Every structure is written in structure tokens, then in C-alpha cells.
């Protein structure tokens, strides 16, 4: 079964149409990249899929692992295995990363009718992942994203993904605000996760080709004005980098 099937999705923000008939299917174990200029609807797509309030779906459908995704509450989507790495992760002072992730893991296990792993195992696993991502383990005791640098916040999103092991991850401009070293660490983190979870799907949303040097996509889509106008393999991203979106939009 396909991981997610997005069919002719249309969505508005404050009455203004942003997504105008977007169609996309992601199979387990594949990495899709969506590239597009500012204002093309990339972040709207990620928010609509995650269920952020303030977006109105005006048409189309989304099936996630066979279920009607749009009928589910945001937390149900997460428990079903959808993960959004935020472009701008939210700071939650006073709640430690450890406490937050433990609560999330317990909530997800409960929703799936599973027994959550013992706290001690969770802590050990979190320390392992933090170390892999080059984060000091003290990081786990700090408030969620509180006072983190831009790069630390993005690494924290990857840490959460690795720990929660979703079926599909949407990485919303995870490369923005990262320097070259941080980009490599994040890229390696995602690649390692994909290696360890071979049926996992990824939807990478990005402006730039450079993240795709680290996380190699199977399929690349170009999104402009709320629609996918071209789909290809990795060479499409390289071509975009050369010609820019304008060249591509003009040609189509």
C-alpha cells in the first residue's frame, strides 16, 4: 500500500487559494523532494498534512496508510506515523526535551495499543541519538528548543524524528538557517535513519539543491502556484539549480 496518496488537494488560507490541485503519491522507502519558489505553497502543504489550524481544505483528498488523513486530528496523524519537522520549531520553556519526548512516545504507544518502553530505555536511546547528532546530552535536560541556536533547533527536529520513528516524515525547509557543517550532520542523521528504517518515507521540502547532496531523493517535484508542474529524478534538482525556477516555469 502507498504511504500517502494526495489527490487534487486544494486549500486556502484566509479565503485565499494556495494549493490548487496538488497530486502526489509516496511509496514506503522512498524519498521525495518538493522544490519551488517562495509562495508556491510548500509550507502550506506541510501544514495541511500535519493538520495545523487555520487552513481550509476546499477540495481533494489525502489517504495516509489507507486512512482519510484530513478527517484526523493533528495528534491522531502523529500517532498514525506522520511527522512534521518544523521550519520554525517552537520553544517550550520549562518542559525538558526528555520529558516532552517521553510524553510523546507514551501518547503514541498508547494510541497504537502498545506498551511504551521503560523510561530508562527511552533515556538511553535519546542519549544515543543526541550523541549521533553531535548534541551534548545536557541538551535533553534543557527546555524544548529554549535558547537553542537555529542549527540546534533543526537537529532537535531530526532527533525527535529518529526517536519517534514515524512512517512518513515531512521535512519543511530543514536546511534553512543551517551552516555547511550542520547541514551535513542533519543530512547524515536523516540518511542513517532511512538506513535503519527502510520502509520509511520522506517528503523533503526545500528551496535549494544543496540538502539533496546529503539526502539523495528518488523523486523530485517542482511546485509553483499550488500545483506540481514537473516531476523527475535527481537530475531535475540539478537542472533547477542551473536554470532557476523562472526558466522552468517559462518553458511549461
Amino acid at each position, binding site marked *: 500500500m502507498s504511504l500517502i496518496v494526495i489527490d487534487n488537494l486544494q486549500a486556502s488560507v484566509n479565503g485565499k487559494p494556495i494549493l490548487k490541485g496538488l497530486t502526489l503519491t509516496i511509496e514506503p522507502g522512498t524519498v521525495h523532494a518538493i522544490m519551488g519558489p517562495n509562495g508556491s505553497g510548500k509550507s502550506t502543504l506541510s501544514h495541511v498534512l500535519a*493538520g495545523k489550524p487555520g487552513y481550509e481544505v476546499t477540495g481533494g483528498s489525502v489517504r495516509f496508510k489507507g486512512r482519510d488523513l484530513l478527517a484526523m486530528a493533528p495528534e491522531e496523524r*502523529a500517532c498514525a506515523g506522520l511527522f512534521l519537522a518544523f521550519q520554525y520549531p517552537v520553544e517550550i520553556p*520549562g518542559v525538558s526535551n526528555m520529558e516532552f519526548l517521553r510524553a510523546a512516545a507514551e501518547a503514541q504507544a498508547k494510541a497504537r495499543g502498545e506498551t511504551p518502553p521503560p523510561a530508562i530505555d527511552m533515556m538511553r536511546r535519546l542519549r544515543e541519538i543526541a550523541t549521533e547528532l553531535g548534541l551534548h546530552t545536557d541538551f535533553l535536560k534543557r527546555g524544548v528548543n529554549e535558547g537553542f541556536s537555529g542549527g540546534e533547533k533543526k537537529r532537535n527536529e531530526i532527533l525527535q524524528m529518529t526517536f519517534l520513528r514515524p512512517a512518513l516524515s515531512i521535512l519543511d525547509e530543514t536546511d534553512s538557517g543551517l551552516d555547511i557543517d550542520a547541514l551535513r550532520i542533519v543530512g547524515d542523521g536523516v540518511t542513517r535513519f532511512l538506513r535503519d528504517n527502510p520502509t520509511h518515507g520522506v517528503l523533503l521540502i526545500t528551496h535549494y539543491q544543496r540538502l539533496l547532496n546529503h539526502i539523495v531523493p528518488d523523486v523530485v517535484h517542482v511546485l509553483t502556484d499550488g500545483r506540481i508542474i514537473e516531476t523527475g529524478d535527481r537530475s531535475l534538482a540539478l537542472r533547477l539549480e542551473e536554470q532557476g525556477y523562472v526558466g522552468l516555469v517559462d518553458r511549461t
Partner: protein
Amino acid sequence: MSAIAAHAWLDVETAAELRALVEAPTAQARVRESWKYTPVLRGLNAVANVAATDSVVAGAPDGSLRVDVAPTASEMALLRERACACPPAAKLLLGARTIDRLNLDTSPASPLQLRALSPVRPLVVHIAPTVRATILDDVDGASAGWLLVCLDTAADLDFTRVRPSCPRDEWQQLQFDLADDAQLIARHYCRGAGLRRLDALVRLLGRNASATISGAWRVDAGDRLDQQWHVEHLAPGTRSEQRHHGIVADRGHTTFRGRIYIAPDCPGVEADLVNRNLLLDPGAVCNTKPELEILSDDVRCSHGATVGQLAAESLFYLASRGLDEATARTLLAAGFLNECIDGPGAETAAALLRTETDHD
């Protein structure tokens, strides 16, 4: 008022002044301002004329605690000055014959625990020069209580008060006087009560004295909490930093007044005050009023207060990780208070503030 007898240890003029304050409590402007959101008569009634019990301090060095003793002239002057500004304090002092006194002449080896605070006698604590002490005050409810702590030169006190919810009305007076270079950390963690009224005064009397004050509270189920925090900078180079976070849920009602006063000729003072409030339910009420009164040049001050609700962005972030709304709200509320919670009573305080009120 019939229960209040005239005492020989109060001079006639003082007794008359205090009685006037108790009998016509709102006649003075400063009393009106201070009791704007809470009926002063309710505060007065909270000072019950009950039989005297002794203050109990666990871990106090042998002989350091004396109960039921006559105040010295200087103690009397301090108590009188304070009583003249606050009707319940005036009433308590009229009814009190004596005080309890704790003298800390050497640094206690381990934290002291205040187990009981006399409801009818002020407890006066003297901390000698350079003595370091930790006091955990988790007395389980007293209808009245007056704690006055004098920190001598370079004394150092780490003080934490934790108060669970209680259905009764309660009035509490808390005062810290700091001499040169004295340092105070004061933490105040509480739930609401029928009425819980706190009149707190921190006086930075000596050069370079400093106070770090944090507060966290959660009030719900129709309880009330009224806190008046006065920090007075009365010497150059003194510093104070305050952070108070409060949650009001259900039909809870809170009042917070944070006043910073900087006396003339006190350059180099630094004073900061933050009070943030979260209202969780439509019936919750919060009054907050930060105040600055600066009579000196060359000082740095900041003060601010906010009243808001849980941020939609934060709730969505938690939802996107699988937490349902109730769990997300609980976690965010606890985090909001945790920002102000640390020190020896932190775990007790965090647990106390996490749950819903159980007395109704």
C-alpha cells in the same frame, strides 16, 4: 474587636494608632491601594484570635529558638512600623503579647525546616554576619503568620515557602531586611485558598545587598490569592530580580502587585520584575500591577506584566508529536511554572502545582 486587649508592652500611642487602623481600615490611602482587590475586612477576619501555638523550626541549632519572649526595643520598632501599614498586621500585633525568636549565630550544617508558624505571635529570625542558612517553610496552612527575617552584614539566606491549597482564609506577612552585602534568595510557591493574602516586604537596607525572588502559583476552583510584593532599595548598589509566574484556572481569582521603590541617593541600583500570568478558563480572573517608584538617578530598572493564554503554536507543536489537547495543556502549564521553580523545595513545589485543587 473585643478580643483585643490593651497590652502594657505597647505604648499608649501605638496601641491607639493600631486600633484606629483596625477599626477604620480603609481610612488611609496606602491601605486602600493595597486592599483594592480584596476586602480588607476579610483580611482582618483571617487573623483569628486563636490560642497561641509555638513556632517550630526543625534542625535549628540548640538554644537558637526561643518562643514566647518579649521583643527587644528594635524588634518592637520594626513590628510597629510594619503593623502601622497593614490592618491585619496591626490586629495581630495588638493581640500578641510576645514574639518567637530564632537567632542564627553560626551557619547551620543542614537546611532548617519551618514546621509551624505561630498564628498569633510574629517569628523574628536574626541571621548573624556572614552566616549562611537555608530555610524551607512548608507549614501546612496557618490562618495568620508573620515571619520577619533580619540578615546582618554579608549573611546569606536561601528561603523557600511552599503552601498547599486550603479552604480557609489566610493572611501572611513576610519581611526580609538586608544589611550590607547580604544576599537573599526567596521562593514562594503556592496554591490558592479561600483567601490567601500575602504581604511581602523586602528591604535592601545596606550597600550591595541583593535579593532574587521567584514565585509560582496555580489557583483554581474559586480560590483566591492576593500577593503584594514590595521591594525597597534603600542603599546604593543594591540589586533585586523578581520573576513570578501564575496560572489561574476554573473560577480562580488572583491579584499580584509588585512594587519596586528606589529611595533618593541610591545610585547603582538594579531592579527587575516580571509577572506573567496564564488564564486557562473563561471564568478565571487575574489582576496584576507592576509599579516602579524611582527617586534616584543612575539606576537600571525594568518591570512588566503579561496576562495571556496558552499559545496556539505551542499546542499545535505538541499535537504534532502525538499529544492530545488535555495532555498538551497540562504539560505547557507545568512548563510555564517550572521556569520559576528551583532550589531545595523544587520537587515538592512542582508536584503541588501540577494537580487540580482537591478541597472542593
